[in-house]
């Protein structure tokens, strides 16, 4: 070790511009190693604590969902692990038509939204990234400012508008799809940032080759933007999947039009709180499953999408 300190390892490289050989300055190794190890240990401990805090509610939820409401207790209890493992709650969810209806409502809304919203967001982003037209800057600034107001400020106005068209209560599902999709073009920022990183000369070259704008978009930009497309689809799916605020007031009073979040909340809120709690938990677990699967499958793209867009926002 002592030797190493006296003769520090020197890496060299050839500086072609200057035509000389330069040294790469090496930091002293061992003191850094120790410091790094200590820092790592602190980071891992912190991360472990955070993940425990994060996971605890979910573990709690899963455990509760396996406690039978028939033989044990359907409400809140003062112990965590159920005395007997049972699938009664899940059986109830599948046998009682209501939950399945809510679930399918949510699924329909989320699927429609993710498809329509992806189309909207990507088109807006492409136009703003690639085309130069009058008022482009202004348009982007207005959207930026509008985006600063929370969506539910428009709640009352939207409700009356939807009511005029018969898109509340019975018509809540198309109504909700409309609400979610209508403003979705405003979320163009990340995908526009991503498109901006794709060289414009690709478009130009394709245009000289005879491609239309749409052809360029479909055949060149889309395949190169896989991460951001997947990110957009996921966001389009997840937002309506877990929405409560809009869903609750647009579908108000018509339980067939509820989505899962609203329906489940009604169970514990307005119905028998003590009786429905474990079934509420089971419902929650089922809601989490598709999202979790989606996330695990597309995790790689999700990260690429978020960070890729951030390079040039």
């Amino acid at each position, binding site marked *: 070790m002592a030797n190493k300190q006296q003769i520090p390892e020197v890496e060299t490289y050839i500086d072609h511009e200057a035509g000389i050989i330069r040294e790469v300055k090496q930091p002293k190794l061992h003191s850094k190693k120790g410091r790094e190890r200590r820092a790592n240990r602190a980071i891992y401990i912190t991360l472990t604590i955070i993940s425990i805090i994060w996971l605890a509610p979910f573990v709690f939820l899963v455990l509760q969902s396996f406690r039978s409401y028939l033989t044990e207790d359907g409400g809140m209890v003062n112990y965590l692990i159920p005395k007997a493992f049972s699938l009664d709650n899940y059986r109830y969810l599948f046998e009682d038509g209501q939950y399945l209806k809510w679930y399918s409502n949510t699924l329909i809304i989320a699927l429609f939204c993710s498809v329509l919203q992806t189309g909207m967001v990507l088109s807006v982003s492409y136009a703003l990234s690639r085309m130069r037209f009058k008022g482009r800057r202004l348009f982007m600034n207005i959207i930026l400012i509008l985006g600063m107001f929370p969506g539910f400020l428009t709640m009352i106005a939207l409700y009356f508008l939807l009511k005029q068209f018969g898109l509340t209560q019975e018509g809540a599902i198309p109504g909700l799809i409309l609400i979610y999709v209508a403003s979705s073009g405003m979320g163009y920022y990340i995908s526009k940032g991503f498109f901006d990183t794709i*060289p414009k*000369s*690709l478009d*130009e*070259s*394709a*245009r*000289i*080759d*005879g*491609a239309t704008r749409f*052809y360029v978009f479909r055949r*060149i930009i889309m*395949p*190169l933007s896989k991460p951001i497309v997947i990110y957009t689809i996921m966001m389009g799916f997840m937002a309506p999947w877990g929405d409560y605020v809009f869903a609750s007031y647009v579908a108000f009073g018509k339980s067939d039009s509820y989505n899962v979040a609203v329906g489940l909340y009604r169970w514990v809120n307005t119905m028998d709180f003590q009786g429905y709690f474990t079934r509420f938990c089971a419902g929650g677990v089922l809601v989490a499953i598709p999202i979790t699967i989606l996330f695990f499958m597309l995790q790689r793209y999700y990260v690429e999408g978020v960070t890729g867009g951030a390079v040039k926002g």
Partner: protein
Amino acid sequence: MASVSLQHIKKIYDNKVVAVQDFNLEIADKEFVVFVGPSGCGKSTTLRMIAGLEDISEGTLKIGDRVVNDVEPKDRDIAMVFQNYALYPHITVYENLAFSLRIRRIKQEEVHRRVVQAAHILGIEEYLDRKPRALSGGQRQRVAIGRAIVREPAVFLIAEPLSHLDAKLRNQMRAEIILLRRRLDTTFVYVTHDQTEAMTLGDRIVIMKDGFIQQVGTPQEVFEKPVNLFVAGFIGSPQMNIFNADLIKEQQGRYTVVVQDLRLPIDADKCALMADRGVGSQAVKLGVRPEHAQIHFDNAPDTLEGTLAVNEMMGSEYHLHVITKDEQTIILRTPTVDLSEKQRASLKAGNKLRFSFPSKVIQLFDPKSEQSLLYS
């Protein structure tokens, strides 16, 4: 194959920046024209206007006999090679080459024939099923050119194709472009900021600065008869040396130029040129190319004296940076083979040095207008 005609072409950007001013040029069928100039001179903008990627603010652009100002790029019968290659990264080299043909719905056999032929010309047959990122810079460059070849366009537009390559590859590709040009035998418009490329490739060179054409001519013309100081300095490497001098008009249309201690009678044909233009006695800028100066190791009369500041050994020749009496730095090139050991040894920094130049190689410029007094 087609001629290209640019008449009073002007480009004004939305932010009122004028990129190209009154550009007039007739490019003949099968001609190889090079636009050259420093960055921001408008050469790329002009090329993009020919391609149809930029709108033309004023003027008329014709390809063949057709005015194409408002014709879409795809309908102009041109192909363009981009500076950054613009290869589609997600598809194979084969598909990159076939891309434009597929859009035009050309039959599969014909697509295959053209792709294979282009690949053969460029020697990239073995890379056809690779993606662009698995290729080296030179190979990507070939694919980019190949993509233009398969189109069989009337006009070939090339934007700074060699600037991303290292020096060795650049020389090689330059030679290949010359061969390619011979093989394709079509009209080429080539943009570069490198005067060597311009000189070696072009039938004619268009030298631009600040949106204006400075001079149009064959490589020989722009080298030997630069019309102004800018062209004189831009073409040739190292740069032309410029001295402050005085021009004296004598009897019978003879002229003499005085540089420091050197009195140089000007030869007859140059005198005639100046006499025709009515040039009188005046202060001038005198230009001499580094390779035209002669070094004297004895105390010859009619020579200039300077102090050697730096001696760059380039192998076959020395580049001598010399500080003259009036504190100007000039560069002299001298071949090494002609020098004896003793002479070489005397070329040390700090030593005095004598040099001269024959009058037939000099250029004369007006110091105010910077225009040549000899050529226009």
